[in-house]
């Protein structure tokens, strides 16, 4: 049941990203050329809505459907990781137009290219895994 709920949430998330063209290479190029407000508006209004939701959850002590308190874990700062990892990720995003979510949309829309990005992303994850103990945190 939990799996189905999660799948449906993923379906909705994917549908919004697809309908708003956030996975399109051209949209990402347009964003990094500062030629349209579309992607900026999408990301900023998503952050604002999410932030407001978190305030409401905290203020009204909203519980999960399983009756538990909702605990939000902080994201620890990783000086090198946030910067070097962020730069690497951003370059991949700029080259392919695909960040992590859109990789899976590409699999559904342009499956051959999508699978190539996916294989690359898994290999990149494994590369990090292999190097993780040698890289500065």
């Amino acid at each position, binding site marked *: 049941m939990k799996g189905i709920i999660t799948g449906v949430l*993923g379906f909705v998330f994917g*549908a919004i990203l697809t309908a*708003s063209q956030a996975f399109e290479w051209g949209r990402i190029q347009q964003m990094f050329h500062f030629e349209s407000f579309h992607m900026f508006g999408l990301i900023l209004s998503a952050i604002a809505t*999410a932030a407001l939701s978190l305030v409401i959850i905290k203020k009204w002590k909203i519980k*999960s459907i399983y009756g538990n308190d909702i605990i939000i874990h902080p994201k620890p700062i990783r000086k090198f990781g946030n910067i070097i990892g962020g730069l690497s990720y*951003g370059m991949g995003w700029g080259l392919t*137009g695909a960040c992590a979510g859109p990789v899976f949309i590409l699999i*559904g*829309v342009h499956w051959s290219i999508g699978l190539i990005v996916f294989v690359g992303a898994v290999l990149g994850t494994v590369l990090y*895994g292999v190097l993780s103990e040698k890289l500065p945190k």
Partner: protein
Amino acid sequence: MENVLPWYIGGPLLGLIVPLVLILREKQLGISSSLKYVGSLFAFKVPFFNYDRKKDLWQIQFTLGIIISAVLFNQLGLISPPEIESSKDYVEQMSHIYELDNWLLFLIGGLLVGFGARYANGCTAGHCIMGNAQLSLSSLITTICFFIGGLVAVHIVLPLIEIL
């Protein structure tokens, strides 16, 4: 521009996924750990992947939902390339970027995304949306670096490799 869901509808809907995932699944939105899950299926000898992968299983379910929605949109013919008017070179390139001739670009780009997401401990969903919404300094720094990396890729790397 008529074939695109406007940002002022799409953005808030995306943002609402954050509380929905918290309330319905008790998870903080993120996607890139699904890649770690997949990696752990075959690279289990690497200590980094020797972990309790069950905690990331929900992201596999989430990404399967994403794939199904994309397949459905595609089958229903609801996907049309963005209509972008610009004097910049990428507009012409846009129409054939997804051709297999560009496989190396997409493989290397994917590699940078996978490596970067794990090193930075999150992706556009986990850092840009979830992390910034919880006012995490780590996510703000990462988001700024995402953008700097993207600017370098688009304005320096793509012209160098003659994609643009």
